[in-house]
């Protein structure tokens, strides 16, 4: 479980996220949604510590990450897996080396054990026989899958995904979403997904936080979202024609 308390962050005097608090449950896909520029990615980076928040605290299973010393922060970070928007695969390494990287650096496993684990993870994300390919030789969807494989290879307790299906065709996007949800349940991770894709929201949103202008305006599940009375959320949700049709059918 991850808990955030009163997180705020400004850039050049402009407050991008304002006093956000909330909880993200273990074993669930927790979504942070909102239109572009509402501070979703900034909030996610504040949670993982890539951006230092101006105020507020982040707790990983009751461990205060914000005030932790460097060793504790490193320890917590080694329990984190993260999928970045562009995959963030290392250009100079093959797919296999990319996925094996956390094991190489963070564990004392033997080469055969590492290779088994890498192959297991690649199979788990539906990729086989691409071990020796370079990131530049594979498609965007494959890169995301490799990114997921790399983020789960170390059996993380916390999984973060920053716009996992941006730039993907709808079919691949759904597959990636399903994969994230399955892995969350399988590994019982606390998963936080940042997205503005309504298919993801309806498909995998077990717990949703809606951001608007840097504020947390609404929390609930995908089942509640249609009935919410927050006008900003309604505008966001029903700006999608499919959702509008769903509403009219309802």
């Amino acid at each position, binding site marked *: 479980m991850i808990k955030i308390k009163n997180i705020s962050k400004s850039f050049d005097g402009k407050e991008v996220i304002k006093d956000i608090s909330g909880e993200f449950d273990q074993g669930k896909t927790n979504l942070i949604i909102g239109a572009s520029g509402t501070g979703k990615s900034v909030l996610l*980076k504040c949670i*993982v*510590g*890539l951006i230092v928040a101006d105020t507020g605290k982040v707790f990983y299973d009751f461990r205060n990450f914000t005030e932790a010393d*460097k060793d504790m*922060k*490193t*320890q*917590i*970070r*080694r329990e*984190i897996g*993260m999928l*970045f*928007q*562009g995959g*963030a*695969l*290392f*250009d100079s390494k093959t797919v296999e080396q990319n996925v094996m*990287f*956390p094991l*190489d*650096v*963070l564990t004392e496993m033997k080469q055969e054990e590492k290779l088994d684990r890498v192959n297991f993870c690649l199979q788990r994300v539906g990729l086989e026989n691409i071990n020796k390919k370079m990131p530049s030789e594979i498609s965007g969807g494959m890169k995301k899958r490799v990114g997921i494989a790399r983020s789960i290879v*170390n059996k993380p307790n916390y999984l*973060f995904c920053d716009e996992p299906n941006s730039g993907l065709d709808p079919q691949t996007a759904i597959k990636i979403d399903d994969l994230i949800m399955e892995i969350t349940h399988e590994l019982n991770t606390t998963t936080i997904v940042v997205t503005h894709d309504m298919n993801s929201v309806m498909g995998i949103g077990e717990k949703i936080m809606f951001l608007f202008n840097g504020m947390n305006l609404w929390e609930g599940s995908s089942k509640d979202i249609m009935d919410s009375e927050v006008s900003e959320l309604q505008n966001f949700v029903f700006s999608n024609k499919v959702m509008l049709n769903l509403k009219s059918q309802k």
Partner: protein
Amino acid sequence: MQFMKEFGRYVTFLGLLFVRRETLKTYYKLTVDECILIGIQSATLVAVVAAFMGAVTTVQTAYNMVSPLIPKYIISQVVREMTILELAPTIIAIIYAGKVGSSMAGGLGSMRITEQIDALEVMGINSASYLALPKILASILMYPLLVILAGFCSLLGGYVVGGLAGIITPADYTYGLRFFFDSYSITFALIKAFVFAFLISSISSFKGYFTTGGALEVGIATTSAVTTSIIAVLLSDYFLAQLLYLR
């Protein structure tokens, strides 16, 4: 003020290299990889440039020595001194900054904008140390070797051109190379090589590591890395020359 701020960030960056380090085995492998890369990237270019530097210096020195009273072997003595004290360590440093420094800054800058550095940080790895320290160590190990190669090729270039053009006989050239030779020049050239290698690799890594924005900014960071490295090399060259003079 801006310079002081930037310098402070640079010093902090250097400090970052030595905290939360990974295992020595990890650094060993990365440093060896970087050494090979630097060697492959630079050896041919350094050898070619140095050979021509030596050849041109021989011709120019001969052209400017109009007095028949000056013995011919002075030409190679001048070439030797210029090569060991300035041309090999300093001019090659400028080429090194353009070739290897820009590659370091560009590589790290690209890693920054494509979130690869963030990926390392999220894994709990000190990205500055993991990425920059092996580059700096490899530079400190490899650049003195490149300076030695450059010195050899430069003197060889002078020898070949001097003989082919009939400027100086091989025997005179060899005699001049040995004439009043102070081995401290070699020590001094290597001290310079260590200092320049550290400056170029650390400044380039610093510029690349803190790139923000997109592809355009990577280009700007790369240019800035080369420019700043060259200025730092020339400044330190002056101060080191003063030290040599004081000796």
